[in-house]
């Protein structure tokens, strides 16, 4: 039997949704019994092997071919700017990458800001957004609790992911602009897309079918 296709899944919520769709598409998926510690899981039917990685690492695993395909949020995908194919959008993981500021901020267009300090986990997209508008933003790259930055005077704005906006509101922040509407994407390695064309195509079509039925 041929080697299974390797699927990189982002640890966390997206993986649960991805597994639901993979199961509906007819693939054997690992059960809860496999526990949370194993990083490599084999599907019982031998068609897919699952690796669980940090969400922002999924595009890297796929670009290098360490995984043939993967599930990644568009936010992570655009931030990483990795060279992968994106054959299918998946109907989960919806969120927005937004610019937010303090609720009491004067009603001033962003482009009139002098040189705002912006805290974010998405430096590439943030830089591109402000630069495109001619604003020399000072980026403060953080790895968590971005909402805190404006409250304690660390930053004027934040660029962060928002699902409902509740977290922002609770922290006295308001959305100012949307940079990106994000959802989960199936991504594929360029070499695997060709060298294992039949299996990759089968997966895309089966998942697309599951998405249509959902």
């Amino acid at each position, binding site marked *: 039997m041929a080697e299974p296709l390797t699927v990189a899944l982002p640890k966390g919520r997206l993986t649960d949704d991805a597994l639901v769709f993979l199961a509906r598409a007819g693939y054997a998926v690992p059960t809860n019994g496999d526990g949370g510690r194993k990083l490599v899981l084999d599907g019982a039917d031998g068609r897919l092997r699952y690796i669980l990685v940090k969400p922002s690492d999924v595009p890297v695993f796929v*670009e290098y*071919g360490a995984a043939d395909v993967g599930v990644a949020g568009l936010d992570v995908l655009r931030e990483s700017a990795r060279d992968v*194919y994106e054959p299918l*959008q998946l109907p989960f993981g919806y969120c927005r990458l937004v610019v937010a500021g303090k609720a009491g901020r004067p009603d001033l267009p962003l482009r009139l800001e002098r040189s705002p300090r912006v805290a974010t986990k998405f430096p590439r997209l943030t830089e591109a957004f402000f630069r495109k508008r001619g604003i020399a933003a000072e980026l403060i790259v953080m790895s968590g609790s971005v909402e805190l930055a404006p409250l304690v005077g660390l930053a004027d704005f934040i660029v962060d992911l928002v699902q409902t906006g509740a977290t922002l509101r609770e922290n006295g922040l308001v959305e100012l602009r949307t940079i990106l509407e994000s959802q989960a994407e199936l991504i594929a390695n360029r*070499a695997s897309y*060709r*060298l294992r*064309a039949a299996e990759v195509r089968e997966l895309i079509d089966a998942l697309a079918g599951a998405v249509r039925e959902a």
Partner: protein
Amino acid sequence: MDRPLPEGVRDLLFADTAAFRRMETALQATWSAWGYREIHLPTFEYADTLATDVGSEMDAELYRFFDRQGRTLALRPDMTIPTARVVGTRLYDQPMPLRLAYTGSVFRYEPPRAGRQHEFGQAGVELIGAGGTVADAEVVALAAAALQAVGLPEFGITLGHVGFFRGLLAGLALPERLTARLQEAVARKAEAELVRLLAETPGLPPVARQAVLALPRLTGSAAMLVDAEAVCLNATMMNALADLRSVAALLDAYGVSRFVTYDLAEVRDLGYYTGITFEGFAPGLGFGLISGGRYDDLIGHFGPPCPAVGWALTLDRLLLARELQGIVEPEPRPDVLLAASPASAEGRRKKEDGRCGSRAGKMGAAEPGAGTGQNCQTCLGWAAVARGRGLKVEIDPLGLDPQALWHAAKARGIPRAAWYAGTEDQATITVREADGAEWRTIGADDWEEMDRWQNR
């Protein structure tokens, strides 16, 4: 003391260098068997020359610097542009076609990916002065032959044609903004994005919609090239298919069609290529290792217009691809470590300058093969003859005694230690294999035995 290397460059040590050399030798043998002649190109040129029509992407990747007059120079980012300059300015009136080949380093300011640093090794061929599918097929078949020649067991080449997508764009006649988005979506094989794009352009006729939606599926074997006729909007698309079918038939005749698949939605470097395009992949590597295509517009930038088709492969990636498929280059090593004439350990300890044959008087006479300066000179003569027969002979310069000599050979992966004794008339070699238990003595003219030492 720290001596950091600048970003983007690397040293290759012994086995890797040997592998590079072996790959280059195999490539040279292959392309010269196909009539390609090698040229040597300068490492840097005027930046204006290299930036000609390369597209902004490569332009941003150029390593630039100034000459003493303040003119901007750049390290070559590939070999095709310098080759085109040579043809356009020096070879344009030579009998065509020209078959050219090259190997060398190229330099690009891009993040290191898959074994490729800012400086990496490239080898390639260009077939110049011949349009048409016979030339196209020759170059693709040569790519397959080259990858086989370097000993890559498994690989795949995907063949496309820019005419198909260009024809589609012409047929769609979309506003520029949508054209760019469409190209971007097709490049990423983003099928949902295509659907969304169509939703934004309600005026398109159904055949055109169908063609756009079909694009991501127009991949696979040569049989797909027939089915794809159903979505052609114009003669440009039909001609692209006809070209590919003709190339496919020729590749069949070349016996390489098992390596080749087709993809009509490959739209990279759309502005550079003018006909067929192709890219080669190997299992596990994740990145393309060879790419090429037809670029009939490039040489015209430097001289009279001239059709051309070619490819370039990245040697660094080829090395990785071979390793992933289990091909390990052996560490280069000599066949034998030869002591000129070992003396007793005691005699050697007193020796200070370590040069062969000096202070012969101090050598222990009790040691078998105890030598003299005369002995040593004879042994160097013997080493020269042995090397002439292809044996790799390393001379021990330290004056080690037999035991130390054997240990030194073992430690350095040299398969045997030996010492030479006697005169020109009657000489012997006493040898011990690195994994052997004892020394044995053979005649210094026992070439039958010693030829067996080569590479083992």
